[in-house]
C-alpha cells in the first residue's frame, strides 16, 4: 500500500457540510430497489420448511410427495448441500445452520426447501414433506444451559480455555479471560464495594427489510445472486465455498438495504436459494417472512452477568471484576469474549479481571448486532458504577471523570490507549444543559458511557472521470447509513470540485476488487481512505494530462482547488486548467482518466460515547416513557454531520427498544412465542422524544481526515443510561433488561415487601 493514512490536520471545503442524500428521492418515492424488488423472467418461488422443535434428531425426511406435486421444480435437503468446508469449523456451522443435517437445533431451523411456480404451490409442497423427528430435551436459558444436568446440545464441544482439558462435553464452548493487576489486592484497598448480578434478554436487530434474494445458477457453472446484504463480497466467498462454485463465476449484486445492524453479515437463505436454483435450472426468489426472520436469522445474545467494583472514599476505583455468560445459539461463538473485552474499557483500572463464557442454547445462531456484546456488558458495569457512586456519595459524572481512561491508560482488554475521547464526552455531558433541567414527579435521570473498537479492513475503490468532468465513484462497501453521500463529499474534497459533480454507486462483485463487509463501523472510515487514495491517483493522471496540454514537464504542474496550475516563473503566462477542461481533452491525451485504489484500512481508532436520559415511570402500570435523550460521541471528523447525527439517534432508538420492550420469549416447549412486530414491539416515532446529539471531533491519527467509525458506539450506553434513569425514578435498582412494565411492577412490589 503506497498511501500515507496519517492525519494531516488540513482544512475542508466539502467535508463537514450537509448536502442532500443522493438516495433520498428514490427511497421516499418507492423507486429504490430492495432485496425483494428484483425479479427475473421464469423465476420460481422458494420456501423453507423449518423445525417446529427446539431440539430433535432428524431420523428421516421423505420429499417424494412434494416432488410429485404439479408446479414443484425442486426440493432440497441437507443432501443437496454437501459438506465442502474442508475442516473449517465456522463454515461448517454456517452450512448446518442454513440446512440442518443430523439434528434440528432450534425452533425454526431449516430442514428442507422447495422451489415452485408460485407461493401457493410452494406452501402446499412444504406440507407434503414428511420429517420423522426424535424430539430431544432442550434448553434455552443461559444459566440453565451451564448446569451439569442441562440437555447437551453438541457432544463434540469440549470447553476451550480451561487450564485442564475437560473430559466431558459441555454447553460452554469457551472460557476467556482479560485483565491485569490483582483484583483481590484491589478489593482489599476498597472502602466501598458493589457486587450485583444482571440479566439481559435476547433481542433482534429488527431491520424492517427481511432477508431477500434472487439466485440464478446456470448450467455452465456461472451464477448470479441479487441480495440484501451488508457485504456482497463476503456473501460471494461464503456461498461459493458452500456450493462449490468458482468465486469469479458467482456475481453478487447488493440491493438497497432496509437495515442490517450486523444481522446481514451472515448468510442464511442465500445458499439455499442457490441450491434450489441449481437443482431446478431456473432462477429462484427467496424472501423470508417476518416470522422466519425472528425464528431463523441471527439475534444477539441473552446474557447473565455478575459485576463487582470497589473504590476508595476519594472515588478512585481500586478493582473491577465481571463474569459474563452469553448465549451463542447452538453453535460456538465469541460473544462473551467481546463482552469481556469491552466491559471496563471506559476506565483507568489498576486491577481488573473479566471472564467470559460462551454458552450453547437451543435458540437461533447468534449474529452480530451493532457493537456486538458491548451494550449488555455496559449495562451491567455502568449500573454498578452508578450504584457505587451513590454509596460513596459522589456525583456519578464526577466519579466517571475521575476514573476515565485517557491517553496512556492500559485498556482493560490489554493494549495502551492512544488519544481517546471518553474524557471529553464526560466533560461535555457535565456541562450540558440537559444535566441541569428540572425533573418532575415519577421522573428520573440517568447517564452512562460506552466503548466500541471500530474496525477497518480490505477496501477497493474506483474513481472514473467522465468527459464532461463529472465523476463516478464505485465503492464496494454497502451503503447502510449514508456512505454514498459521505464518500462523494470526500471525492469532491480531494479533487477540489463540487459535491454535485460526484455520483457514488455500490459496485457488484465482478466489477471491483474484494471488499470486506460494512461492519465494525468501517464503511465511511475505510472507503473514505480508499476514495482519498483513488482521487490522489486520478489527480496524478490529471496533472500528467495538463502537462501534455501545456507541453511542459509534469513536475511543473500542481493541483489546486480543482485545477491544474503551472508552477514557476517560466510558465507565468499559462492560466489554470479545470478538471472539466482536462477531462474534455482526455480522448486526445491518453484516454479515460481514472484513479484506482486497493488497500487495507487499519487503525480505525476506538470510539467512546456518553448518553443522558430522562424517563417518566407510571408507578401504577410500570410503563416507562423516555422524555428526553442526549447523545455525546466522538466522531473523529464528521464527514456528513447529518448522517453522523442519524447514526447517533438510530443507536439510541434501538437501545431504547432493547432497554424497555424487546425480548425473545420462549415457551416451555422451546418455541418462540412472539415472532412478529405486534408481540415483539420495537419503538416507533411516537414512542420516542427528539434525540439530541453533540458531535465531538477528536481526530483519529490514522486517517488523513481524522475520521473514526460512528455507527455502532451509539447503541452501547442506552441500556445502562435508561436503567440508571428508571432506577432513579422508581428508587429501585433495575437489574433485568428489558425493563418492561411487568418487571418494573415486580421490582416495586419486591421493594415494598422488603
Amino acid at each position, binding site marked *: 500500500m503506497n498511501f500515507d493514512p496519517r492525519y494531516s490536520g488540513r482544512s475542508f471545503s466539502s467535508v463537514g457540510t450537509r448536502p442532500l442524500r443522493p438516495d433520498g428521492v428514490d427511497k421516499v418515492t418507492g423507486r429504490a430497489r430492495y432485496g425483494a424488488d428484483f425479479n427475473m423472467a421464469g423465476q420460481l418461488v422458494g420456501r423453507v420448511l423449518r423445525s417446529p422443535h427446539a431440539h430433535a434428531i432428524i431420523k428421516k425426511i421423505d420429499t417424494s410427495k412434494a416432488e410429485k406435486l404439479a408446479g414443484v421444480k425442486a426440493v432440497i435437503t441437507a443432501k443437496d448441500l454437501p459438506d465442502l468446508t474442508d475442516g473449517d469449523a465456522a463454515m461448517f456451522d454456517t452450512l448446518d445452520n442454513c440446512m440442518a443435517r443430523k439434528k434440528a437445533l432450534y425452533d425454526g431451523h431449516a430442514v428442507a426447501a422447495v422451489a415452485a411456480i408460485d407461493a401457493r404451490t410452494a406452501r402446499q409442497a412444504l406440507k407434503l414433506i414428511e420429517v420423522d423427528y426424535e424430539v430431544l430435551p432442550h434448553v434455552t436459558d443461559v444459566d440453565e444451559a451451564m448446569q451439569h444436568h442441562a440437555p447437551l446440545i453438541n457432544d463434540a464441544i469440549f470447553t476451550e480455555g480451561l487450564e485442564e482439558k475437560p473430559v466431558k462435553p459441555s454447553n460452554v464452548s469457551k472460557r476467556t479471560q482479560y485483565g491485569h493487576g490483582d483484583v483481590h489486592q484491589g478489593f482489599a484497598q476498597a472502602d466501598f464495594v458493589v457486587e450485583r448480578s444482571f440479566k439481559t434478554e435476547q433481542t433482534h436487530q429488527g431491520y424492517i427489510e427481511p432477508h431477500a434474494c434472487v439466485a440464478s445458477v446456470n448450467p455452465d457453472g456461472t451464477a448470479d445472486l441479487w441480495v440484501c446484504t451488508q457485504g456482497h463480497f463476503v456473501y460471494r466467498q461464503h456461498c461459493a465455498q458452500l456450493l462449490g462454485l468458482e468465486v469469479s463465476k458467482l456475481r453478487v449484486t447488493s440491493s438497497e438495504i432496509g437495515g442490517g445492524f450486523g444481522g446481514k*453479515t451472515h448468510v442464511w437463505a442465500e445458499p439455499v436459494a442457490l441450491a434450489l436454483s441449481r437443482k431446478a435450472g431456473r432462477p429462484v426468489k427467496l424472501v423470508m417472512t417476518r416470522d422466519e426472520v425472528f425464528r431463523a436469522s441471527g439475534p444477539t445474545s441473552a446474557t447473565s452477568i455478575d459485576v463487582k467494583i470497589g473504590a476508595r472514599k476519594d472515588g478512585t476505583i481500586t478493582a473491577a471484576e465481571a463474569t459474563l455468560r452469553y448465549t451463542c445459539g447452538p453453535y460456538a461463538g465469541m460473544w462473551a469474549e*467481546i463482552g469481556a473485552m469491552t466491559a471496563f474499557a471506559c476506565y483507568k483500572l489498576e486491577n481488573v479481571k473479566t471472564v467470559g463464557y460462551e454458552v450453547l442454547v437451543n435458540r437461533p445462531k447468534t449474529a452480530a448486532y451493532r457493537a456486538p456484546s458491548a451494550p449488555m456488558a455496559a449495562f451491567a458495569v455502568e449500573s454498578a458504577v452508578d450504584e457505587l457512586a451513590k454509596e460513596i456519595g459522589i456525583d456519578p459524572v464526577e466519579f466517571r471523570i475521575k476514573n476515565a481512561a485517557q491517553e496512556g491508560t492500559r485498556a482493560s482488554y490489554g*493494549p495502551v490507549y492512544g488519544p481517546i475521547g471518553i474524557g471529553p464526552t464526560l466533560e461535555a455531558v457535565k456541562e450540558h444543559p440537559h444535566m441541569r433541567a428540572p425533573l418532575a414527579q415519577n421522573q428520573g435521570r440517568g447517564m452512562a458511557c460506552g466503548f466500541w*473498537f471500530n*474496525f477497518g479492513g480490505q477496501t477497493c475503490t474506483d474513481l472514473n472521470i467522465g468527459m464532461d468532468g463529472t465523476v463516478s465513484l464505485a465503492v464496494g462497501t454497502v451503503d447502510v447509513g449514508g456512505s454514498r453521500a459521505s464518500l462523494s463529499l470526500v471525492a469532491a474534497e480531494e479533487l477540489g470540485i463540487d459535491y454535485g459533480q460526484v455520483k457514488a454507486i455500490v459496485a457488484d462483485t465482478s466489477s471491483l476488487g474484494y471488499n470486506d463487509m460494512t461492519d465494525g463501523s468501517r464503511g465511511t472510515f475505510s472507503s473514505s481512505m480508499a476514495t482519498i487514495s483513488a482521487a490522489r491517483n486520478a489527480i496524478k493522471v490529471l496533472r500528467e494530462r495538463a502537462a501534455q496540454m501545456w507541453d511542459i514537464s509534469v513536475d511543473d504542474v500542481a493541483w489546486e482547488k480543482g485545477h491544474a496550475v503551472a508552477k514557476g516563473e517560466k510558465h507565468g503566462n499559462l492560466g489554470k486548467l479545470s478538471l472539466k477542461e482536462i477531462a474534455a481533452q482526455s480522448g486526445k491525451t491518453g484516454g479515460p482518466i481514472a484513479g484506482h485504489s486497493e488497500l487495507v484500512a487499519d487503525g480505525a481508532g476506538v470510539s467512546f460515547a456518553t448518553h443522558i436520559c430522562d424517563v417518566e415511570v407510571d408507578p401504577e402500570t410500570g410503563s416507562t416513557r423516555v422524555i428526553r435523550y442526549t447523545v455525546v460521541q466522538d466522531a473523529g471528523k464528521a464527514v456528513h454531520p447529518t448522517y453522523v447525527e442519524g447514526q447517533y439517534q438510530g443507536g439510541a432508538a434501538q437501545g431504547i427498544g432493547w432497554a424497555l420492550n424487546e425480548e425473545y420469549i420462549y415457551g416451555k416447549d422451546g418455541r418462540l412465542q412472539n415472532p412478529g412486530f405486534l408481540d415483539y414491539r420495537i419503538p416507533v416515532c411516537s414512542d420516542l422524544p427528539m434525540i439530541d446529539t453533540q458531535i465531538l471531533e477528536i481526530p483519529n491519527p490514522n486517517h488523513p481526515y481524522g475520521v473514526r467509525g460512528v455507527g455502532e458506539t451509539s447503541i452501547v450506553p442506552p441500556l445502562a443510561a435508561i436503567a440508571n434513569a428508571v432506577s432513579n425514578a422508581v428508587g429501585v435498582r433495575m437489574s433485568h433488561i428489558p425493563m418492561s412494565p411487568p418487571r418494573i411492577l415486580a421490582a416495586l412490589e419486591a421493594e415494598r415487601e422488603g
Partner: protein
Amino acid sequence: MVEVTLWGALGQLAGGKSKVEVEAKDIRELFRKLAEQHPAFEPLLDRGIAVAIDGTIYRDTWSKELPEGAEVFLLPRLAGG
C-alpha cells in the same frame, strides 16, 4: 527483538506465559516466527489474530512494521455489526 503480550487463550497455549520475545521486523514475520516457535498457535493464527501496536489495532496490514520498543499486544480478531 520485540516483546509480545499474549491474551489469555494464547498465553495458555504458550505454556502459561503472558509474554514472549520474538525477533521480527513486521507483523508478517511476527506471525511466521510465532507459528515456528509455538506450533499450537497455528489454529488461532488461521482463525485470525489482530495486533495492537502502541494501542492501534491492526487486523490485516501484515506489512506493518514493529518499531523498536513498541508495545505489541496480540488480540483475537473480532466481529463487528
